[in-house]
């Protein structure tokens, strides 16, 4: 039996990514499926590194027009002024709304940039077989995956402004090409985070002596260890 294997992969098990059931594929099965939910099972996410690289680089490229092109144009009584992401934040600061300005700045600028940098760092660390602080890198990955959706705020703000303000001659608000690029950045980075497999971080770590798979600790004692 598999009493001494440390990981599911070593023991020949496949973990269902969807319902988290452990399964052992029949020998010779081409595309084994999860016996419980029917999802296709993989030892690791397929082509994880290549896919994540491709999506991350795409997001880097899209990030340039997202910040340079206007995300919307507000026309008040004939005068039109294009708004970029940064000028939108500035406007909030000028209006004395600095908590909201911070929020938008964080969601629209800090999060996407940090997300891309973190993904790049994780990719490089796995690529070079780094054994440096796997626990922290896994936490970074989890953060990256959960925080990405909040960058959509700006897109939603534009949607609402456009919905409410259409007063013909008095005032109009039009979306801009920067918004398309920015929406692209958010979606592509979300896919990038989803395609990265954090288990690759741990695959580079050889099992330490004395680490066994079946913990004989009492139930509920699965605590964080470092």
């Amino acid at each position, binding site marked *: 039996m598999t009493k001494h294997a440390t*990981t*599911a992969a070593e*023991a020949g*098990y*496949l*973990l269902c*990514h*969807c*319902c988290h*059931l452990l*399964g*052992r594929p*029949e020998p010779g099965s081409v595309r*084994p*499926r999860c*016996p*419980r*939910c*029917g999802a296709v099972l993989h030892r690791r996410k397929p082509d994880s590194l290549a896919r994540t690289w491709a999506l991350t680089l795409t997001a880097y490229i899209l990030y340039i027009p997202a910040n340079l092109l206007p995300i919307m144009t507000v026309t*008040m009584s004939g005068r039109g002024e294009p708004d970029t992401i940064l000028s939108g934040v500035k406007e*909030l600061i000028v*209006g004395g*709304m600095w908590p909201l300005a911070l929020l938008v700045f964080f*969601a629209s600028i800090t999060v996407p940039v940090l997300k891309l940098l973190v993904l790049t760092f994780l990719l490089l660390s796995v690529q070079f077989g780094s054994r440096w602080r*796997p*626990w922290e890198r*896994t*936490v970074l990955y*989890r953060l990256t995956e959960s925080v990405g*959706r*909040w960058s*959509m*705020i700006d*897109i*939603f*703000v*534009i*949607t*609402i*402004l*456009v*919905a*409410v303000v*259409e007063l013909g001659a*008095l*005032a109009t608000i039009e*979306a801009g090409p920067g*918004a398309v690029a920015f929406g692209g950045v958010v979606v592509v980075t979300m896919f990038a985070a989803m395609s990265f497999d*954090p*288990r690759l*971080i*741990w*695959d580079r770590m050889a099992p330490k002596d004395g680490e066994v*798979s079946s*913990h004989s600790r009492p*139930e509920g004692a*699965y*605590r*964080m*260890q470092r």
Partner: protein
Amino acid sequence: MTARSGTGEYAVAEHTLVACHDCDLLFRKPRLQPGQKARCPRCGAVLFQRKRSGMDQSLALALTSLVLFMLANAYPLLRMNIAGRVQEGSLLTGIEELYSQGYWEISALVFVVTFLAPLAKMLCLFYVLLPLRLLGLRAPKAELVFRWTEQLSPWAMTEVFMLGILVAVVKLADLAALTPGIALYSFAGLMVSMAAGDAMLDDHEVWERLRSPREATGD
């Protein structure tokens, strides 16, 4: 989808062991009391969480969310008064307006993450939970539908949209007199009920209940 057993397409289930989805560590499945969490000893990922709540709460919240969702999309979000001219807009008018301005990409994106994904997620939950709870039966293709529910989760961005409304209100406040519409309150409620629903849904319990009869009981 092939038959459920004996095809070789399907792996054989292992119910006594479990692996961490973030680092692949293998260990014996913990027995948890309601309200307990099991974390991976190696990387700290939350592996199991037994919720104190049952399916009734999940269903009630899903129903609440559905009603609020309808209100949130049927009524105006904001009413604006500029120099005596009154205007109101809802989420769907915004999506339409974006489309008519030629930005179909943003229009489609917003439609999916604020309308389609949350709605589909609620309907999928109903489809799986109602027959399970009322009749103790598995709806046809319930596993597949419940899998969709899980995969839709990151794309249902109701709570992010609510923040977007907040920022938009602040931006508009110095432009015109604003009156919040019914939809604004509905969205606020929807955000709360969807978050509570996510927190109370014990997906492991649902998977256990959906399990085909031929498999041994785990815990």
